[in-house]
């Protein structure tokens, strides 16, 4: 930067008749050795290397300085994080008992309730500072003569807990102010499912030793992302621990056995809880995996791809390479079709559910009737002595053939026709008229039964 030096005299006004002397070049420069040292040398070297003029360099310096000022971390308690830790505490926070620190919500005490595990050290430091400034016992005593430092103790405890990384982890592990309920995932639409899962897993991800944690992702996430997500959560390495729930070891007690017993119990309790937590997460992931619409989609896509490949290899020898745009278009088309189909299916399903049920019942009944009708036809045939001449007993082969042909005929005909046939035969009565009726119906069956009938032809 160009520093400006003020000269110690005042410039008088120009004498009358003064004219500008003509400009001339200063004497040629001489040469001297320069020490490559000091900030000014570096500045000169910078101007030379970067080919900057004085003005450009000034601009750059001013810019750099402004940037530095902007990024300069507020050392005091000035403008950084305005409002943090300066809100009025609700009554239930203020009236806490410092002895009950295990039940205290440390984040709420420091006014970080909205940040919780996301609050970083700088937040905590500044919030604590501002809280202390407002709630220091000395200040309180000056204000209303009260000697109540219980909230100050709460603040100190909260600060102690949250600035100690182990203690903070223990508290974060069991932070009861973060809801960890999982809604009924089955009843959700795919969109709701995705948004819910995103919420759930970003919450669960905070316990991961490995950061960053992959997101659940959107409905149309590619296969790789989806698989990556499930891989991560199936191999989840959690730092969550449950020391917070430990029972206090009675420090005053001299009984070593007593202490050991409590410690042992605490340890087993911790392991149990940890195990439980791991199982909980695993079940959750299992459940989500089973219901994930994206998995179904991916499977369908893979199948379609396989089929297409097969077809393509038969038809063209080799599958045509699609341009990305084409591929995308095709995919979109497919997706659209799928969605439409799904929609249509859904609608149809909903509409005809009652009808279908009725139809099903009718079908069942019809099948039962069909058997009945067939049986009665068969009875008539047998009572007509299998249309054999009087006195001649039918051969076994003939009986079998006729019954088989009857089966075929019943199969070919619609149930209604079978019913008609039965009625006709019953009306015609035993013997030749029955056979005539049978032959007639075989003829009516026409092409379907061609060549299959010899007895009733």
């Amino acid at each position, binding site marked *: 930067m160009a520093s400006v030096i003020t000269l110690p005299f005042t410039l008088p006004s120009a004498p009358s008749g003064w004219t500008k002397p003509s400009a001339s070049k200063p004497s040629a420069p001489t040469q001297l050795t*320069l020490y490559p040292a000091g900030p000014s040398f570096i500045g000169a070297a910078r101007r030379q*290397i*970067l080919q900057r003029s004085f003005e450009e360099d000034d601009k750059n310096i001013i810019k750099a300085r402004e940037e530095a000022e902007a990024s300069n971390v507020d050392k005091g308690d000035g403008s950084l994080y305005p409002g943090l830790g300066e809100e009025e505490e609700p009554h239930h926070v203020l009236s806490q008992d410092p002895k009950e620190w295990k039940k205290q919500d440390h984040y709420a005490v420091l006014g970080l309730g909205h940040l919780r595990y996301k609050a970083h050290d700088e937040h905590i430091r500044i919030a604590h500072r501002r809280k202390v400034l407002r709630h220091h016992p000395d200040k309180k005593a000056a204000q209303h003569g009260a000697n109540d430092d219980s909230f100050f103790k709460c603040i100190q405890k909260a600060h102690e807990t949250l600035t100690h990384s182990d203690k903070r982890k223990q508290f974060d592990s069991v932070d009861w102010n973060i809801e960890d309920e999982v809604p009924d995932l089955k009843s959700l639409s795919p969109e709701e499912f995705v948004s819910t899962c995103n919420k759930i897993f970003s919450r669960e991800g905070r316990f991961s030793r490995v950061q960053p944690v992959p997101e659940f992702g959107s409905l149309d996430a590619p296969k790789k992302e989806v698989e990556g997500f499930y891989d991560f959560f199936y191999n989840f390495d959690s730092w969550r621990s449950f020391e917070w729930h430990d029972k206090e070891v009675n420090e005053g007690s001299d009984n070593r056995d007593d202490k050991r017993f409590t410690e042992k119990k605490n340890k087993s309790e911790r392991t149990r809880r940890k195990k439980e937590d791991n199982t909980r997460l695993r079940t959750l992931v299992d459940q989500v995996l089973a219901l994930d619409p994206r998995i179904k989609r991916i499977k369908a896509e893979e199948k379609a791809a396989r089929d297409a490949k097969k077809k393509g290899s038969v038809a063209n020898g080799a599958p045509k390479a699609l341009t990305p745009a084409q591929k995308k278009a095709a995919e979109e088309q497919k997706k659209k079709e799928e969605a439409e189909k799904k929609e249509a299916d859904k609608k149809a399903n909903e509409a005809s559910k009652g009808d279908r049920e009725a139809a099903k019942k009718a079908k069942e009944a019809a099948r039962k009737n069909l058997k009945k009708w067939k049986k009665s036809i068969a009875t008539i045939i047998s009572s007509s002595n299998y249309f054999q001449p009087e006195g001649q007993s039918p051969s076994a082969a003939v009986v079998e053939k006729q019954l088989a042909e009857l089966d075929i005929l019943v199969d070919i005909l619609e149930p209604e026709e079978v019913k008609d046939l039965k009625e006709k035969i019953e009306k015609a009565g035993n013997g030749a008229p029955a056979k005539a009726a049978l032959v007639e119906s075989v003829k009516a069956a026409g092409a379907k039964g061609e060549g299959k009938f010899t007895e009733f032809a």
Partner: protein
Amino acid sequence: MADLWDRSILGINFGQSYASIAVIDKEGHPTCIANEEGERQIACAISYVGEQVYIGNGALPHLVKNGNNTIMGFRNLLGHTYDEVDHTTILTAPLLADSSVPAYTVDILVPPPATKSASNPRSAAASGTATPNPAASEPIPSTKTITVPEVTSLFLSTLLTSATDFLGTKPSACVISAPTWFTPAQHDALRKAAEEAGISVLQVLDEAAAVLVGYRAGNAGEEERRDKRVVVLDMGETSLAISVVQVSEGEYTVLNKGRDDKLGGREFDDLLLKHFSKEFTKKTKIALDLPCGPDASPADKRADAKLLLAVEHTKRSLSASSGAATCAVESLKDGYDLSTSINRMRFDGLASNVYRQVGNKLIEFVQAAGLDLAEIDEVLLAGASTLFPGLQQHLSLLVSPTTPVTSTIDPSEVIAVGCALQALHLSTLKDGLKVTDVLSSIKDKVDVTSSPIGLVIPGQDEISAVIVDSGAPLPVRRRVAIPVKKGNVALELWEGKHEVKVEKVERAPIEKSDDDDEDEDDEEEEDEETKTPITKKTKVLGGVQVDIKGDGQLILEVIVQRNGGLQVKAWEQGHEDNKDEFEV
């Protein structure tokens, strides 16, 4: 600022006799640190005593009885071949005749091998203290040859260890000082030795430049003059180096430099030795003539070394306090102790001759630069020997009364501090610059303005203010603000010439006013002269005229381009449009 902390920076002042190290502390200030022994001035000495190696101040006492195995004064031999070195002046471990690299040979003891071997015949010749005939189980004497670069590396690595212990991490950036008269080959040798020691050297910096950076000349603040001529006077233990430097807004161009390798703190040692030995002889009636020559008796030599060590402390207390400084040596000679003291006035009397020699050298080098002493704006002191108040007083009487003799930063530490600052500057380069690019951007010599450019108020004969001084590296830009009244103002720019106006002042010789006095080499005249530097105008360069709308300031900007072209612009402050400019 956070990146300052993760960066550990080291500056090393590597002198011929003493070294010092400085680091950048947590607040970003450079500080000279003490090594493990609590010493800020670390003696450049290495002593081999049997199986032990003493490095630093611990090696000094071994000069007394183990001089042959103690290595000192190795820095100046760096980058030289054996033939180039004046090997007759080396008083410590003998130099080996080897044409490529000078090397020392020392007697050491090596741990005994399994088999018994004959004692080395050299050990007897080495020194009286060497074990004459070792038993089989004892270490056997041997000799070791160690070259100057090896010695340097060994010594620098101990400095690095001290700094690492202090910082907690290994320094990532280091600048190391070299004397002003080092040749490029010597620079390279020093850099190589330092890198051998595991130091990442950003730059080997001239000592004078380190002093300038250490005092932040030209960058200190608003009040400081931007363009000035300074003399860097560096008086170490063994030599005196004087550089005349033009400071132009923090850029340093060398007008002249030189050294006297006979004039140093050793002179003061010799004076004190002489003084104390005389006193000793007077008290004990034992003949002792110190400092002794090479053919003196062993007893005298030993007394010399003993007294030398004791005198070191006397010197330090003489510079530190105004009271009497003691000197005590047990069994200086023939079992008699020396215990005496000397006060500052007595010492200044003894040393006045040395002071005068230093003053003469200063005048000599300033005049060789084509300048008069009156034209020097500041004297910067460096080196532990300039700590003597007597010397500082003598110098301030020599230069003009307005010229400060600066020792605001401890002169014994300023070089190390300057090196650390330079390392800091180099390691915090912005805009993606690389250290090598920055350092290679200059050639050996650069174009500088040949004569000053000044402002002349129309109608006046003299240059009212120098805007751009001579010796400023091109391109150069200066801005001045001139208070103005409403109306039409004009100014001319002239090239000028520095001159010294001498005015004889007739004064009664009785008046003993040292303040105004400018004594030249000789103190012949009774008449006193006052010398004031002035700038005569020689050649007009152009003029500007601005119609000022209201009382305020006129800003004048003068830029001399790299090609020597001139660019002048003047405008009313706050009204950028109301301007006048010309360009040549």
